[in-house]
């Protein structure tokens, strides 16, 4: 067995609480499919037959009842439940399932929607015998207006600085703006080995990682690392150039001391070795290939720990963790799969005007004289006469009475919109009722119980 797939579906969706306070993030509908269907579909298309899904009990229950998951996903899903209010980071979750992992691991996050050719990432992992291979893409600009956003766009989130070498494949440097107090400092040893480094800031990390088994063994021993993206990946990237990995004889190196103070208590060393090491060494020595030129060192500078990144130029790669991303992906999701835009069980009257880029879910009822453009209508939704829905996302079980006008809004499940309501750029929470003849613009309408949450 070459790779085991692990899907992390226990995330809370902390950046879009308006949507997730009732529906857990992995089950949010995107294009009428639950969000976690997309990474599962990616894995299935590529050829995986088994996936370990780490999620919460609530999601597991919803998964078994959801009509989409059962027939579409043919892989064997091994669901592991963890406590939802515990502070389990992604690395902690990996530690939890350490006993199930027998080979190298491919970790995917449940909010990833992409059409990447996965072999590009895995080939880097295989060909260079890498410890870590990940996927990144230049960030998309979000163009749709976000309901409930008042004023200008919020300031950009903390940026990530990613340093790659000339070929654009080897990861040399990774840090978040939050960790760099005085500025970006790069060690001289790295500059000596890789004099040309490209530092990029506009990349979005797809949270798709190929990790060697030794990394998981290391995680099992080092309980201080709790997040893959926040701690493990920067640690591995730094460790590439650490002297102790390359020369196991030298102890208490000055560099390493600094590392130790930064990372806290990372005791065990990451031992990257493989069977028949001398044979591999011999093959590498006899091979006339080098990954860099211009200095006197052998391929990979003699380092055994290597981290690679595949940066996509084209194609879709979204992480649905903010409202803007959610809205954008709803627009683009239908392009990822070829299902008819209108579900077969939907009942649509003939005098309805439906744009070609809209999706209607199962068992919908759309009455006469409605106009639906650039929208997604969820399952079991009822839309009465003379309703105009433009540029909106309507989730499951919603009832929209006559004469409503809904523009650029997100209506969550089981909401009821009264007659003649006019909603522009609003977000209507789960199960909310909008009174008839209401006119709301740019508002987030959620229940009082949600307002108490922080």
């Amino acid at each position, binding site marked *: *067995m*070459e*790779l*085991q*797939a692990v899907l992390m579906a226990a995330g809370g969706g902390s950046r879009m609480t308006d949507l997730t306070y009732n529906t857990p993030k992995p089950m949010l509908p995107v294009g009428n499919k639950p969000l976690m269907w997309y990474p599962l579909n990616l894995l299935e298309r*590529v*050829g*995986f*037959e088994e996936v370990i899904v780490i999620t919460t009990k609530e999601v597991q229950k919803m998964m078994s009842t959801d009509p989409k998951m059962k027939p579409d996903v043919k892989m064997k899903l091994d669901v592991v439940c963890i406590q939802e209010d515990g502070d389990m980071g992604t690395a902690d979750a990996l530690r939890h399932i350490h006993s199930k992992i027998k080979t190298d691991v*491919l970790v995917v996050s449940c909010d990833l929607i992409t059409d990447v*050719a*996965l*072999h590009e990432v*895995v*080939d880097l992992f*295989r*060909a*260079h*015998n890498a410890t870590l291979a990940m996927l990144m893409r230049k960030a998309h600009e979000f163009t749709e207006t976000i309901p409930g956003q008042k004023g200008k766009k919020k300031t950009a989130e903390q940026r990530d600085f990613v340093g790659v070498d000339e070929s654009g494949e080897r990861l040399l440097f990774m840090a978040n703006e939050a960790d760099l107090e005085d500025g970006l400092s790069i060690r001289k040893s790295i500059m000596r080995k890789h004099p040309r480094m490209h530092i990029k800031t506009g990349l979005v990390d797809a949270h798709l990682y190929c990790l060697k088994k030794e990394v998981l063994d290391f995680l099992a021993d080092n309980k201080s690392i709790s997040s893959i993206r926040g701690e493990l990946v920067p640690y591995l990237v730094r460790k590439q150039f650490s002297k102790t990995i390359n020369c196991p004889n030298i102890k208490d190196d000055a560099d390493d001391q600094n590392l130790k103070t930064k990372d806290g208590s990372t005791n065990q060393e990451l031992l990257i070795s493989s*069977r*028949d090491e001398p*044979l*591999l060494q*011999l*093959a*590498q*020595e*006899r*091979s*006339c*290939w*080098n990954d860099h*030129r211009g200095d*006197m060192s052998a391929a990979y500078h003699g380092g055994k720990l290597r981290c690679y990144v595949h940066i996509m130029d084209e194609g879709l790669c979204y992480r649905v963790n903010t409202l803007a991303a959610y809205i954008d992906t709803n627009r683009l999701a239908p392009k990822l799969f070829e299902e008819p835009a209108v579900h077969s069980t939907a009942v649509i009257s003939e005098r309805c005007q439906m744009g070609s880029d809209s999706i209607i879910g199962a068992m919908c009822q759309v009455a006469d004289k409605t106009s639906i453009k650039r929208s997604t209508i969820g399952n079991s939704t009822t839309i009465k006469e003379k309703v105009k829905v433009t540029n909106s996302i309507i989730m499951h079980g919603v009832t929209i009475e006559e004469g409503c006008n809904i523009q650029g809004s997100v209506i969550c499940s089981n909401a009821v919109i009264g007659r003649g309501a006019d909603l522009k750029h609003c977000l209507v929470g789960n199960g909310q009722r909008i009174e008839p003849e209401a006119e709301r613009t740019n508002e987030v309408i959620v229940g009082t119980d949600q307002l108490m949450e922080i």
Partner: protein
Amino acid sequence: MADSGVTDGAVGKDGIQQAKIEGKELTKEEKQRLRKEKKQQKKNKEKNDENASKESEEKPVSAAAPTPTQPSQKAPSAVPAPASLPVPASEPQPAKSKADMKAERRARQESERASKKKGDAGQPAATGKAKAAPSELQPVVKRLPEHVQVDNPEVLKKLAKKLEKQQIPLRLDYGHKVSLFSHLHQYSRRAPLTQQIGIPSTVIHPAIVRLGLQYSQGIVAGSNARSVALLHAFKQVIRDYTTPPNEELSRDLVNKLKPYISFLNQCRPLSASMGNAIKYIKKEISNIPSQYREEEAKSKLLICIERYIDENIILAAKAIAKSSIEKISDGDVILVYGCSSLVNHILCEAFEKKRKFRVIVVDSRPRLEGREALRRLVQRGISCTYVLISAVSYILPEVSKVFLGAHALLANGYVMSRVGTSQIALVAKAFNVPVLVCCETYKFCERVQTDSFVSNELDDPDDLIVTRKGRTQLEHWQEVPSLGLLNLVYDVTPPDFVDLVITDLGMIPCTSVPVVLRVKNMDQ
């Protein structure tokens, strides 16, 4: 006309087409003969396989000019193609069953094999036909390997079928091929074979997938490195192997290895050294006595592999270094080409033994392997000069010896090595500089080749494209219909240009290669 009757029936439709393609003139009798067996063939049409006609034997017309390098005849395939082969031995019998014909053919092949042992061997059947008895008219010529018949659609179909059976994806050729080399595969590095296999590869062992990727991306390059990496991957395969119930390890493991070898072949055509290593492993596996338990058998195989590498690569390098050091004297100026692991090893050893010499490294595009050789030598402290191959006649007056590495040594004494080697040997001969080729005996192969066209490897043509000052002139080379980019990998050097071959068996002239091969075969 019993003789010709046999051969007439033998010549398939394709044979005539081939002759026409080769532009050979058909004499009147030949035309008559061909017409006759065309009629006979039509009678047996129902019994014919599709591929049958391709597997035609020699044509009388090719007696005109048996090209030495490309035997134009194709021997019958191992899977006997029924019906096209001589059905009308004496009387035309259209309704012969497949089994009868198979048995007939087998009997004929046996008798021909017996006569081959007595008489001369290896002659193209065209010449043998005139003298030999009808039973020996089955061609004695070895069949062409499929990797040099890429322009023949039937061969491609056969290959596709075979790969499908083994569940290996077929790698598609890329780009416009130069017409002289259209019979060879040409792949693109940007379309790796892993695109078409599932990610957790279940059919192919992950170590083999990794190896194939490393071959196709050039991370493992050089015939020694490739063989060592191959044996390393096989060790992992053997370790992870479990004998299925009711199967014998000695037979099942060989069958398991076959798809892996096809996969590696698709990633990059196998080298001669790899081929010999595979032959050795297969032989060792088949020779495992059946009473061995699985663990014992596996550990025995692992030990065999270790021993093979030790003897043929590590110790051989030591032996060759020892002999070559005698040939290096103080004050020598040695010219090397490209990056040969063996030559680098020799030079480093000689430097350790305190010989005083300097090295000139000659390099060529697009691989520019000489840079790696330069790095390794300079790291040791050897003083080096670096030139491109276009300057070799400029630099040669300074040179006292030329050391070349080899990818394989062919049975007729030709040296197959990186493209450019024969050029260097030629120029060195012109300047009367001795040329020494260093090659381990496990790279000796029984193939015979006198030119670099017949069997070669075409690398990715996009490697030739270079971007200078932001402009890439050849970016859209595929749109120019009259332009073809050719990136050859190997060439053959005739033995007249090579003065000495240094092997682990000693220093031999180029013409002694078949002797060594014979001795090795006798040993086994």
